[in-house]
């Protein structure tokens, strides 16, 4: 009788498939739990004690946020409250947000919640991308707060007649069709002043999230944050 090959033996393939499926399932369950501490929202206490979290607490809206190249990690990272000697967040420098830099955790969380609900009801993702979800019909909003176009030297503050980034953004959000910024103009969505405030807080908080350098080319835009 010819010698039976292992390769044509059913049991070998069954056991191999069982092993691969079982291992992959365990790995996916582990990865799910491994992700939780990475995406957990930080707190005001973390910010005050200088603890860097991937997702900072809502009171990050009280701080100055910049986008700096981290040579070790090979991409830009959000730096909260100015950089320390190592180029990481020092949580020292504050910045007023709609005239205040003392938003409490409850107030800030309320604003972010309003902004999040607003972004969902107005379906921002239908055109924009937020943290990798959405469309590329309109600009990526993940780091919109850090876009120099809204800064003191950018065109948006002059165009909207406002003196601060947050006011210029809120004005644009309420009356986008008055301010032509793009060949594909944003329609008026009936955003109220309070909703606009929430949306800007939502965008500012989102820009402070460490996204491992996503969107990848954001800092490389000519004349932008880490422009080349």
């Amino acid at each position: 009788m010819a010698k039976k090959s292992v390769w044509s033996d059913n049991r070998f393939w069954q056991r191999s498939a069982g092993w691969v499926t079982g291992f992959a399932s365990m790995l996916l369950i582990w990865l799910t739990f491994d992700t939780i501490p990475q995406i957990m929202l930080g707190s005001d206490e973390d910010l005050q004690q200088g603890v860097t979290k991937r997702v900072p607490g809502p009171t990050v809206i009280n701080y100055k946020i910049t986008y700096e190249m981290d040579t070790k990690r090979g991409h830009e990272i959000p730096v909260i409250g100015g950089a320390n000697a190592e180029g990481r967040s020092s949580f020292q420098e504050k910045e007023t947000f709609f005239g205040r830099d003392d938003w409490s955790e409850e107030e800030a969380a309320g604003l972010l919640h309003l902004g999040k609900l607003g972004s969902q009801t107005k379906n921002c993702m239908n055109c924009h991308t937020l943290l990798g979800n959405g469309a590329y019909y309109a600009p990526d909003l993940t780091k919109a707060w850090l876009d120099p176009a809204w800064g003191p030297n950018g065109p948006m503050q002059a165009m909207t007649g406002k003196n601060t980034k947050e006011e210029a953004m809120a004005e644009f959000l309420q009356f986008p069709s008055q301010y032509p910024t793009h060949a594909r103009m944003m329609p008026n969505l009936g955003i109220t002043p309070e909703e606009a405030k929430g949306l800007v807080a939502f965008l500012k908080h989102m820009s402070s999230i460490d996204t491992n350098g996503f969107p990848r080319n954001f800092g490389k835009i000519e004349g932008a944050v880490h422009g080349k």
Partner: protein
Amino acid sequence: MFEPFVDVVPSFFGWLNQGPLTLTIFLHTVIVLPMFWIYKQEKARLEQEG
């Protein structure tokens, strides 16, 4: 290949994924090596039966 861990939140997979191909090589190793063992077991069984 081994550099200081610079990720924000320490994680086993973050540590594993810091260099080129490290995660891929690790996963292929742990998935494929037991298949050699399964192969040998099945070969021994077939020889015994034959």
